[in-house]
Structure formats: structure tokens, C-alpha cells
């Protein structure tokens, strides 16, 4: 038998049987939605509606409805794109990297975090799409035989890499997430009372019956997908960072961008996971599943990623000074003291100073404080992308081409719409699919439970080794 240190604690707050786990998670989907859920959905759909209207207007009138100009040709949209892609990275970190690191506590949070990944990547995808101006021609970004030569896409362009990376990321995340859902959908199917539920979950669960021969292969595939998703998650934000770093603009061309963007993505993603889960665990009464220990551990990951981000900021500033290159030096002085200094200092405050609170154990275990910190980090990480993108462009080599950028109401409405889409989809997910991975939680129920504890809760343990061999 696996032995656990006496310092280990079980994953769940209170001991549960297998049936308890099924009931706790499934009843959330089987009872009628609460008023609060309807209210939240209504708000989210309104925001989505505002955004959709703004997008429709922009498509009709053109990109001129945005505040872009000749110097600042990329601003709000790409900021949002990077922001949302970054959010997604926490889901893959939890589902793949923590799986490879054999962290059993991930089972309580991986399902919702992966759903968040998918939704966030979908939100991200909107921005480059609408920036194309004619989004119905999006397939021009893919290499397909055409009557223009055929003229192929330029595979040396980071934008083409990006298109393929985001597509791969979304697909692999979807496969990974759905694979994890299949056993749980079968559980929902087998306890469904209404015909519709049985039918729908029956189709979606692929005829799953818990056969160990299938589980055996399933485990192998899960491990393989985790092993593929781990370098994938690094590569995605690396490629996103290369949209900027392959250029020669001071403030964009920095070789540290790839690991720095990845760390930032995990940092912001964990902040969003905490924002969502702190609310969800309360409303859906999942405090026994997503415990204070979970929040503590997520804070520690966030602190680690945040420290890497902070060190990267420092390296960038130091090397800009060290380079003795007047343009590099100016780019960073302009960030800190120029017209966008407010954004820069918001970023530094939220991403560098605020997370220092998380060094203290009792603060990490203070749910309200962690919630506030997570929101501040979300704000800070959005600002980071804004600072990198806009301040580097608005004043580059030639003062004659300097200009200022201000988002228009249309751009702000589109960002609002993206949040609307994000929350609408997340609320629907929470209603129709199991919010916590039922089968995975069952697999770690025995973790660090003492034998006597286990036997008192319907999961009896017997001295197997003493059973006589037949």
C-alpha cells in the first residue's frame, strides 16, 4: 500500500463516499437553476449583446471605428487577445503539468479550469478575427490550394505561427477536456431520471461503461496528452510573444519574451481561476472539494509565476540600461515616466507589489483577500499587455511619428462583450456539465486517509496482504 507522511492531509475537507461525490456534483446540474444564476446569466448576456452590437457596427463601418493610427496600429484588440490567451494557460497548467507532477489536489479544480481555458481561447480568437476587417476571409491565413497561384501563406510570419498555435491549442485542450468528461457523462447518464437527459448524456458519453480494459488505454492516452500539452502550453505563449519579439521595436524586441510571457500567462490564468472558483465554491457549496488548502496551493503557484514575471521586468529594465542603447533606454523611461506612466505603475503595483502579500500563510488562506488580490492581478496583467503594446509603438525611433492612442467606445464595448461571452459560456458550463471531475476525485478519496478513518466512511480497508493466497 502507498504510504503517506503524517503531515499529509486528505484532498477533500470532509470524508466522502463514492456515492456522496456523485451526488454532490451531479445534483448541481439536476436541480433547477437558482435566481442568482439567472441574474448572472442575464448580466453576462447583456454584456455579450453590447459587444455583439459593437462588433456588428465595426464590421459595417470598418476598423476606423477603433482608435488606431499610423504609429499605433495594434492596441486594444491585441491587448485583449494576449490577455485572454494568457488566461487560458492556467487550465492547461492545472490539467497537464500538475498531472505530470502527480499533484492529487488538481482533481478538484481541473475540470472548471480547463473549461475556462477553452472559453478564454475562444474569446481570444475573436480579436485577431475582427481585426482582419473582413473576418469571413479568415481562411486566407491557412495554407490551402487556391486559384491565386496558388499563393501560399508566409510560413516565416509569426502571425501564421500564431494562427496555427492557437488552433492547435484549442483543439488539444478540447480533446483533453472532453476525454476527461466522458466517464462523468456516463455517470450522469446512469443516474438520469428524465428521458431527455438520458438521451443527451447517452450520446455524449460514447457508450462508456467503466471497463478496465478501456480505462487502461484511457490512462495511457491521458498521460500522453498531458505530455504533449505541457510543451504546447509553453509554445503557445512563446509564439504569442514572438508576434512582438521578432520585430525590432525597442520594448518589443527582447529575447526574454518567451519564458516571461509564459510565466505571465500562468500568473494571470491562476488569478482568473481563483476569481471564478472562489465565487463558484461558495455558490455551488463546493467548500469540501475546493478547500482553503486548494486556494493556498493555487496562491503559491501564482506567487511563483508572479515572481518570475517580476524578475523578468527587472531584467528588462536592467538590460535596457546596460545596453547603453538610447532607444532601448528611452523605451523603458517612457514607460515609467511618459504619458502612459499611469498604466505602467498600475501594472507594477498589481503584478509586483500586491502579490507579495501571498508570502504569508494566513493571508493566502483569507478567501476575501485572495479574491481581491486575484482581481488586482487580472487588472495588472491586462495593463502589462497594454503597456508592452501601446507604449512601445506610440514613441519609437522617430519623434516625427510619435502619437497617442486612446480606445474608442466601440473598442471598450467589444472588450465588455468578450467578458460577456466568457461569463455566459462559463455559467452555461456550470449548469450543464459536471463542474468537478467526478471520476478523478473518486480516485483520490483514499489519499492520505488513515485506514481507521476510511473504514468509518463506507470505504472499508482491509489488510489485503494478509488475505490467504488461494
Amino acid at each position, binding site marked *: *500500500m*502507498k*504510504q*503517506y*507522511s*503524517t*503531515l*499529509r492531509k486528505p484532498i477533500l475537507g470532509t470524508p466522502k463516499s463514492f456515492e456522496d461525490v456523485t451526488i454532490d456534483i451531479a445534483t448541481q446540474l439536476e436541480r433547477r437553476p437558482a435566481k442568482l444564476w439567472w441574474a448572472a446569466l442575464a448580466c453576462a448576456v447583456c454584456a455579450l449583446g453590447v459587444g455583439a452590437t459593437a462588433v456588428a457596427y465595426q464590421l459595417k463601418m470598418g476598423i476606423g471605428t477603433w482608435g488606431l493610427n499610423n504609429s499605433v496600429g495594434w492596441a486594444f484588440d491585441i491587448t485583449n487577445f494576449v490577455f485572454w490567451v494568457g488566461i487560458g494557460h492556467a487550465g492547461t497548467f492545472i490539467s497537464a503539468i500538475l498531472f*505530470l*507532477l*502527480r499533484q492529487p489536489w488538481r482533481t478538484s479544480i481541473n475540470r472548471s479550469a480547463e473549461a475556462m481555458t477553452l472559453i478564454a481561447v475562444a474569446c481570444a480568437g475573436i480579436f485577431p478575427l475582427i481585426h482582419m476587417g473582413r473576418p469571413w476571409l479568415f481562411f486566407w491565413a491557412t495554407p490551402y490550394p487556391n486559384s491565386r497561384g496558388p499563393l501560399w501563406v508566409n510560413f516565416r510570419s509569426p502571425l501564421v505561427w500564431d494562427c496555427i498555435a492557437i488552433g492547435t491549442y484549442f483543439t488539444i485542450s478540447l480533446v483533453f477536456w472532453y476525454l476527461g468528461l466522458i466517464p462523468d457523462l456516463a455517470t450522469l447518464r446512469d443516474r438520469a431520471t428524465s428521458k431527455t437527459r438520458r438521451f443527451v448524456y447517452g450520446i455524449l458519453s460514447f457508450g462508456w461503461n467503466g471497463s478496465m480494459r478501456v480505462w487502461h488505454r484511457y490512462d495511457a492516452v491521458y498521460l500522453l496528452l498531458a505530455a504533449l500539452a*505541457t*510543451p504546447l502550453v*509553453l509554445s503557445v505563449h*512563446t509564439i504569442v510573444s*514572438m508576434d512582438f*519579439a*521578432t*520585430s*525590432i521595436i525597442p520594448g518589443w*524586441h*527582447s*529575447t*526574454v*519574451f*518567451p*519564458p516571461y510571457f509564459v510565466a505571465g500567462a500562468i500568473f494571470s490564468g491562476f488569478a482568473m481561476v481563483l476569481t471564478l472558483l472562489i465565487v463558484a465554491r461558495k455558490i455551488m457549496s463546493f467548500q469540501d472539494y475546493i478547500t482553503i488548502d486548494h486556494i493556498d496551493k493555487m496562491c*503559491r503557484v501564482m506567487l*511563483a509565476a508572479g*515572481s518570475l514575471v517580476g*524578475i*523578468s521586468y*527587472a*531584467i*528588462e529594465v536592467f*538590460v535596457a540600461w*546596460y*545596453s*547603453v*542603447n538610447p532607444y532601448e533606454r528611452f523605451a523603458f523611461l517612457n514607460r515609467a515616466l511618459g504619458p502612459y506612466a499611469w498604466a505602467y505603475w498600475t501594472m507594477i503595483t498589481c503584478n509586483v507589489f500586491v502579490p507579495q502579500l501571498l*508570502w504569508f500563510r494566513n493571508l493566502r488562506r483569507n478567501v476575501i483577500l485572495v479574491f481581491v488580490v486575484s482581481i488586482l492581478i487580472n487588472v495588472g496583467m491586462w495593463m502589462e499587455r497594454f503597456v508592452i503594446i501601446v507604449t512601445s509603438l506610440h514613441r519609437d525611433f522617430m519623434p516625427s511619428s510619435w502619437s497617442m492612442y486612446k480606445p474608442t467606445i466601440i473598442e471598450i464595448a467589444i472588450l465588455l462583450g468578450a467578458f460577456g461571452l466568457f461569463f455566459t459560456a462559463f455559467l452555461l458550463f456550470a449548469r450543464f456539465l459536471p463542474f468537478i471531475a467526478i471520476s478523478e476525485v473518486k480516485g483520490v478519496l483514499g489519499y492520505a486517509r488513515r485506514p481507521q478513518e476510511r473504514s468509518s466512511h463506507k470505504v472499508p480497508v482491509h489488510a*489485503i*496482504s494478509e488475505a490467504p493466497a488461494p
Partner: protein
Amino acid sequence: MIPTFRTPPALARVLAVGMAVGLLMLVVGLFAAPDRAWPNLLISIYYLTGLGLGAGFFIAIQYLSNAGWSVGIRRIAEASTSILPVAAIGAVVLMFGIHNLYEWSHSSLVAGDSALQGKSVWLNPTFFAARIAAYFVIWIVLSKAIVRNSERQDKDGDPLHTSRNVRNSALFVVSGLCTSVLASMDFLMSLQPHWYSTMFAFASLSGSFLSGLAAITVLVVVLRRLGYRELFRDEHLCDLGRLMLAFSVFWVYLWVSQHLLIWYANIPEETTYYVVRHAGSWGTLSVVNVLLNWAVPFLVLLPRASKRSETVMAAAAMSILVGHWLDLFIIVMPSKFRDAPPLGIWEIGAFTGILAVFFGAAFRSLGKRSLVPVGDPYLVESLPARGH
């Protein structure tokens, strides 16, 4: 009970000969071929520091993540950190070679170069020496504190030592990361004082961490061969294999990213670095570097069975240990020898010497205390499962 470890006399003799060869080549080299000996000393010191710091980061990360699997091999990592004081002594000697190594240390050269003047606040011999001293003090004090707590726990088994070490580890990771970032820029990047890359520190640290893991793996394999398979189990070997695989990929990821971005932007100030290193024989060595640090360990460690084979794991680890030396060689030497890599007896002597010094120090440290931290509350998770 845990047996005490004694370095077998045959191994001790081999290590002693290796150290003697290394020392002899260094002393003779400093007079006969100073242009090669000083850079070789720099490579050696950086290499040894990397092995010690890599092990230190390994221990600290295990504490911070409350890991159980690795407790059984922690003493080996602790033994690796005992190389840090040796490296510090080497760094003191290195200070006498500053003028031979670093262009910015010549005030006559700096006077005629506006870029170097701009950096002279940072890059000047006094401040340089003070910084290096500070780095070593921080590394040695913090790693010793962790090792001492772990040792104390052997006697009383108090979990309080674990929580103290978690705090020490947090301090070690934060201050160690900041200082080693600066140290890599000071020791290595300033060899070409006009060139800069923000990735440089991370790329070089990932190599150090990888080599630290490889050194721990070699020690585990040697101890298993000496009959300690009960303590250092297949599972430990397997997990070390996974870590080496992961960080080997991480190393190549940073290597490719830095190369790709500089190649792509094609800014003359930056590409000079690669122009030298990717031409002629240096170019061949750069390819070998990627092969040794990534391709060989990656392909060798990919199949499940190979991570449980002592021979395969030792081979992969040796590939990384040689590869990391080559990596440093390619970073350091071209600043002086642009046209052709100077590979000869001085370099082979130095490499033999550092391996012997490292393993000598590690085995000596292993003999001083119990081979596993017997008082650690997480040790039970690192031991064989009972029952089956």
C-alpha cells in the same frame, strides 16, 4: 539501520588522481598558456557553481512543493551543494585573472569606448569583485542553513525543521534566482561587453539546473552500484529521468528561442554573438552542443524502460555533463578565440579536474552524515511501499 558511507578506496584514488591532474594543468597553464588557462578556470568555476546551485534549487523546490518522492535522495543533492565553497575559492583566484578575461577591466580600453563608459558604473573591477563575493556569501549561507536544519532533523525528527527549511527554501529561491541571474551576466555575458540579451541569464541558468540534475543522477547511479539499491530505488531513478528529460527540453526551448529571436530580428549588435559561434568549427561545436544537451538525453530517455536502467541513465547524465561544459566553452572561448576552438590538453585537464573535484567533494560530504534524512516526516513516501 542506515549504513554510513565510505568512499571505496579505488574510487578515492581515481578522484585524487583526477584532482591532481586538474590542479597541475591549472597551475602550469596559468604560466605556460594564460590565455587558455584563465578562461578554463572561469568555465570550471561557473560549471561547479552551477552544479552546486542546481542542487540547491532542486532541494528548495522540493521543500516548497512539499514533495515526498525526493526525500530519499535529498542527501545526495545536499552533498552536491558542498561544492559551493570550493567554487568560491576558485572565484577568489579568478579575480587575479580579470584583466586577462574582461575587456571592460582595462581603463585604457574603456576610455576610448563610449558604450563601455556607459556601463562602467556596473562593470568595474571593484564592484565586480564585491558582487561576486556577495553572491557566494548568499548561496553558501542559505544552502548551509538548509543542510544544517536537515541534519538536525536526523537527531530529533522534529517537523519544525521542515517548516524552517520551507522558509529557508523560499529565501534561497528568490535571492538565489536574483543573484544567479546577475552572476551569469557578470561572469559570462560581460565577456563581450557590447553584446546583451535579456534571455541570456535564464538560458544559462536552465543549463546549470539541468547539469545539477545530471550530477545528482550520476551520484545516485554510483551509490546504487556500490550496493545502496534499497535506499536509492528504481522510482527515484525514474523520476530523475523524467526531470532530466523535461529540463533538457526546457534548455533547448530557451536555446532555440534566443537563437530564433536574434536570427529573426537580424540586428547587427546582437547577431555578432552567433556569427562567430555558428561559423566553421565553432558551428560544428554548436551543433554538438545541442545534440549532447538535448537530442541525446531526449531520445535516450523517452522510452519508459530506459529511465529504470542505470547504464542508460548514467549515459544520459554524462551526455548532459559533457554537454554543459561544452555549452560554457562555446559561450566563453569565442570572445578570445574567434577563428577556431582551442581544444587541447588544457581543456581536457580542466574538465577532468572539475569532475574529480565535484565528485570528491560530494562523496566526502555523503560520508559525513546518514545517507538518507532519517528524521524527515516525508521520508516514508520515498521508501518502498509496504504490503505488496
